[in-house]
């Protein structure tokens, strides 16, 4: 641009006017960006509102004592019973099986990757674990039903075609990457000087890992276990496919049973009229699920605060 001709240049007041507009649009953009960030809060409010309002309708028809103590769950029958413990038992058993697989496996993999493995192996192993964690749960459900169950039936011939055990085992494999990856991050954050101190005292790598690194990283490990619990409790498709969907109050993993989540899927697959009692049950079940997850999250926060180590 040639500055020779003075009349081409904007006057001072023109430039200031432009600046004023600039401030207005800046404010506007900031407000828009804030709204985008607020959507996440709205989502939470929406979840709480939907679950609570539908559950209030539900509890006007069903007493909360029946809901918690009844030992039958037959909401769609003429003789309707609403004992949520039936579904909770399925959720607890399948999650317990999953965690019994995932916590030892995930922790060992994490210790191995953080303390023993060469950096090259770690660079390859982490993405592979990520891929494992990215497999759709419906595919894991297929795997549990058509591969793991027949395999287990060879060892335990009396195992039925649907069982909490095979669903739980596969769920465990699915959760391993979450635990391994988060725990490994926590252990790698432990300062090197602690390990060096331990080695200097003549401790082996394994002894150092178990007695120095793991306790130092415990708050991170606890966080990863809590996340694993949330995943297990909220997992849906593996159970819907491989654990059968009939409500069954049992603590035996070799039996088929419905869980809170698979019940919701089962009801949603049918055609329930909006506002019917059957429609309301899935929100009551959803509320129960959220409350269980919430309890574990609070426990996790507490564990983290109690065992947080500062270096």
């Amino acid at each position, binding site marked *: 641009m040639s500055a020779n001709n003075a009349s081409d240049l904007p006057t001072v007041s023109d430039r200031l006017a432009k600046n004023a507009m*600039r401030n207005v649009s*800046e404010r506007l953009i900031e407000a828009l*960006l804030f709204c*985008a*960030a607020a*959507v*996440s*809060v709205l*989502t*939470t409010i*929406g*979840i709480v*509102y*939907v679950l609570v309002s539908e559950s209030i309708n539900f509890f006007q028809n069903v007493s909360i004592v029946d809901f918690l103590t009844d030992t039958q769950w037959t909401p769609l029958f003429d003789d309707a019973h609403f004992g949520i413990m039936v579904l909770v038992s399925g959720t607890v058993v399948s999650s317990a099986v999953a965690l019994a697989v995932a916590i030892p*496996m995930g922790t*060992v*993999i994490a210790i*191995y*990757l953080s303390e*023993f493995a060469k950096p090259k192996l770690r660079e390859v192993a982490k*993405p*592979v674990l*990520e*891929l*494992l964690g*990215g*497999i*759709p*749960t*419906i*595919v894991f*459900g*297929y*795997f549990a039903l*058509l*591969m793991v169950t027949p395999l287990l039936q060879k060892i335990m011939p009396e195992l039925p075609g649907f069982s909490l055990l095979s669903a739980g085992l596969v769920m465990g*494999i699915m959760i391993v*990457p979450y635990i391994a990856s988060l725990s490994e991050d926590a252990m790698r954050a432990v300062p090197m000087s602690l390990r060096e101190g331990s080695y200097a005292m003549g401790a*082996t*790598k*394994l002894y150092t890992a178990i007695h120095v690194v793991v306790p130092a990283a415990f708050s991170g490990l606890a966080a990863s276990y809590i996340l694993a619990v*949330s995943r297990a*409790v*909220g*997992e*849906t*498709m593996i159970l*819907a*496919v491989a654990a059968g969907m009939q409500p069954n109050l049992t603590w035996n993993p070799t039996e088929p049973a419905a869980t809170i*989540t698979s019940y*919701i*899927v089962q009801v*949603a*697959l049918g*055609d329930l009229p909006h506002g019917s009692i059957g429609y309301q049950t899935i*929100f009551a079940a*959803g509320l129960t*699920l*959220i409350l269980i*997850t919430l309890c574990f999250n609070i426990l996790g926060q507490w564990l983290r605060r109690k065992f947080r180590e500062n270096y």
Partner: protein
Amino acid sequence: MQHSTLTTEQVRALIARGKFRDTLFQAIGIIFLAIGLLVIFLLVGDMVIRGSERLNLDFFMNFASRRAANAGILSAWVGSLLVMTVTAFAAVPLGVAAGVYLEEYAKRNWVTEIIEINITNLAAVPSIVYGLLSLGIFVYAFGFGQSILTAGLTLALLILPIVIVSTREAIRAIPAMIREGSMAVGATRWQTCRYHIIPYAMPGILTGVIIGLARAIGETAPIITIGALTFIAFLPPAPFTEVSTGVNAGLFDWLMSPFTVMPIQIFNWTSRPDPAFEINAAAAGFVLMVMVLSMNGIAIWLRYKMRKNIKW
């Protein structure tokens, strides 16, 4: 303690035992890692072997059918593609805007704190709960029905935390001097974001978006919960084509169409008693796995490239 009484042999035995335990532990670690790898191979391998007879062009071009041999995944993959389009169009602008706000604009106060805690907690909410949310809000309160729009928005909310977190991480990696340089030549905060921060953070944002979409494309539970149909033998109306005599579909009519997606089709086939449908489930599962694994693969590769290339 009596170490002074240990003989050299005993010390050697102690060391040997310690070393043995180290080796044993390493072996267990490698075995556990191998199990993970084995599961991936078993899954993919089984699906390829079982589903190979269905993996041909007809399978992609046929609608669902009551006869297993004639059934295909046309409505499922088209449905998945359309739902992902809606999800991406909703989640990317919202997620990036939220991430930019939190990193570049937000003041350190209680409002920001609530938003941050909230995003962390949303990431731990079971996906089926998003289905219930959208059943109550999108399907009934907003009246969107069991449509592609509802499904896309549901999954967008589900992956929003992933997009926000990856945007924030990508932005945080940009050094302050970039912002200072931009502002020093008179750019406003938004111009700095628009011309510097967002373009430089793009690879990181893209990685997060791809990982989020890979998660969304495999999600089944929330979509079943909103009441998506499992048997669909038609495609959503393409814009400006004739849907019935004399009536042309509008540009956005497909948004309101009933639909099915890949995971629901697989679920439908695995839950049928006839074993012939297992072959279909295997073939469709393989197609879905290829989609998800390649998306994740691209994301991992992008991240790897990024770590290599960027030197500020």
